[in-house]
């Protein structure tokens, strides 16, 4: 069982009749993802790529009660409501492709999901792939190969390059997770690291972070408690640092948010830092050989 999605995981597509959503529904189906229904209000009864469209998530679940994952592709102004609909329907994992979701909307939606122990990934995530098994989102399948390395990153393209770099060196991925690029995210690094730590099909984890936000720093302490090696790659070292408006940000976040602060926090708690993409598979190899970590499976 891969984390989050596996070959038998039943999924639905909210906003399936949109241009991107219908194209990627095709790709996902081709990859083998078990899409059982789509939802677009007012378009119930239509068919997209042979998949039945419903007016509401609830109607879809009446026919397919065992849906475990929904992906959300609706325009940003409808994202909050679409997430709440999936939460209300009790779908246990919600993967939010939609980008630029208003911050207050996302804070509310993620809280409602947390209250019901529902995992929300994104917004603005490229998606999640368990290579050779299933793909939810718009990750390009060509980049990913089955294997035993878990990856987690915020940026879509960086997710692809991570996997690409691993693949070129002969590794493959157990699951690759895009956390998403929006300022407020559902799941964060720690949530995904925890899943990989407990996943018998994962030997090591590569995490990529970037300047801005606090998610990398927040996850760092958990790495100490992991039995598996974590190789980290942080970008934005050469980017100019923006200035904060007012004092509130500094009060809450202190010195977090720079590439430097992230690298320091990760190093301090035992992550192995990579300088370049090509260095990543080298460090993974070393970690798996040199140390006795991650040999459980």
């Amino acid at each position: 069982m891969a984390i989050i999605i596996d070959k038998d995981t039943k999924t639905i597509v909210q906003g399936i009749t949109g241009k991107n959503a219908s194209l990627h529904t095709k790709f996902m189906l081709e990859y083998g993802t078990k899409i059982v229904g789509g939802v677009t209000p007012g378009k119930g009864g239509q068919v997209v790529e042979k998949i039945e469209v419903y007016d509401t998530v609830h109607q879809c679940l009446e026919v397919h009660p065992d849906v475990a994952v929904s992906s959300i592709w609706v325009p940003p102004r409808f994202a909050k409501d679409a997430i709440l609909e999936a939460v209300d329907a009790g779908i246990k994992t919600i993967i939010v492709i939609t980008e630029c979701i208003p911050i207050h909307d996302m804070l509310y939606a993620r809280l409602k999901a947390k209250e019901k122990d529902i995992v929300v990934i994104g917004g603005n995530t490229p998606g999640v792939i368990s290579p050779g098994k299933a793909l939810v989102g718009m990750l390009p399948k060509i980049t990913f190969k089955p294997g035993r390395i878990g990856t987690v990153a915020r940026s879509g393209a960086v997710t692809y390059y991570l996997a690409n770099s691993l693949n070129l060196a002969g590794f493959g991925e157990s699951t690759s997770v895009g956390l998403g690029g929006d300022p407020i995210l559902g799941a964060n690094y720690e949530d995904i690291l925890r899943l990989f730590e407990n996943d018998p099909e994962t030997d090591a984890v590569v995490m990529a972070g970037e300047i801005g936000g606090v998610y990398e720093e927040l996850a760092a302490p958990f790495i100490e408690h992991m039995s598996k090696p974590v190789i980290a790659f942080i970008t934005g070292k050469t980017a100019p640092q923006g200035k904060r408006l007012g004092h509130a940000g500094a009060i809450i976040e202190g010195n977090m948010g720079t590439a430097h602060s992230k690298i320091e926090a990760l190093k301090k708690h035992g992550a192995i830092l990579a300088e370049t993409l090509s260095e990543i598979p080298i460090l993974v190899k070393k970690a798996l050989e040199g140390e006795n970590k991650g040999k459980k499976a």
Partner: protein
Amino acid sequence: MRLYEFEAKKLFRRYKIPVLEGVIIDRNSLNELEKVTYPVVVKAQTFLGGRGKAGFIQFASDKKEANKAICSILGKSHGPFVIEKVLVEKRIDIEKEVYIAATIDRLEHKPLFMLSKRGGMEIEAITKHDPEELLKYYFNPDDIMPGFKARIMAADLGFTGNGLGLVAGIIFETYRLFQGFDCKLVEINPLALGKDKNIYALDAKVDLDEDAMFRHPELKEMGITARHEVGELTQREQTAKAAGIPYVDLDGNIGVFPGGAGFGIAAIDLITHYQGKPANFMDSGGAPTQEKLRAMLGLLIDNPKVKTIFGARFGGISRCDDWAKALVQYVKENKPKKPMIMRMAGNMEKQGRKILEQAKRDYPELFKDIKVYAVDTPIEDVIKETIRIEKELDTE
């Protein structure tokens, strides 16, 4: 989206958060000074803090002094910003200054209201040395602030009697503004108790959520529109902005034509790591149109500092065929002379590669310095190749 003080105060007035009378003055409206009663404070309108220390807040007790203060401020640079406007406000006698702010705690994923009994200039020292003096009150997203909580906060700030109700009202309305306009930050520092026993928001810092602007058409009616917040723009940055492309000029000579912002940042790091010099940061956004892609290329080709172009497209929500079409179209129309070292992989790659191969066959001369690697070439080899070519050109 950060607001100028005078814009933020327009929002304050809407929520009946008390601010002082004032006029906004630029080079063409010095006659507005006729309207003020002295003494006044002259305050530069800029997006950065630390105006006081930088000499951008000045006092004036008559028109002559005010004129002098204004002239000493307008046109000056504050960090990357050129000061174009000043706010001239009535000056009052202050008995007490406190700090209040509504913001989002990204660690806790919750709205947060903060108070400090010591406001004004002292807040910096408190932030650094006595952060425990700051009082924090968390809220659940979408929860309205109950009146009693606002009163508890006002009491915690040390207000009693009439002031308690006034300050509780301001706290309540500040939070309503914070929620009502999708703010990332509403900060009032100082919130002042005047010797006249009234309460005033002397400064106003508001940061709006760009992604929620569709909900607030009334901002436009108030004259508050989107702006670039990172300082004066270069000519090219202005062109990019007009085309909706996030773009920053850097000091190097390798044009960077990446996909999204995430890899844009990584590309700059990697070019620098391999001793190349990136000429720019750029972000295509998700699923850019062909028109946008061509505009992105144009920004690099038209930049005389750029000698070579590094490009990368990993098709996710963006499609390789769209990218290839845009590239071919641009090259056919503009016949650029600069070498382009690129890599294309991902969704619709096969279709994209067909388009490129056809173009190479049709226009071999135009495409001779354009290489587009595939998924089996590591991206860093493409970067290294770009740097190598750039160095060759450099030594020619």
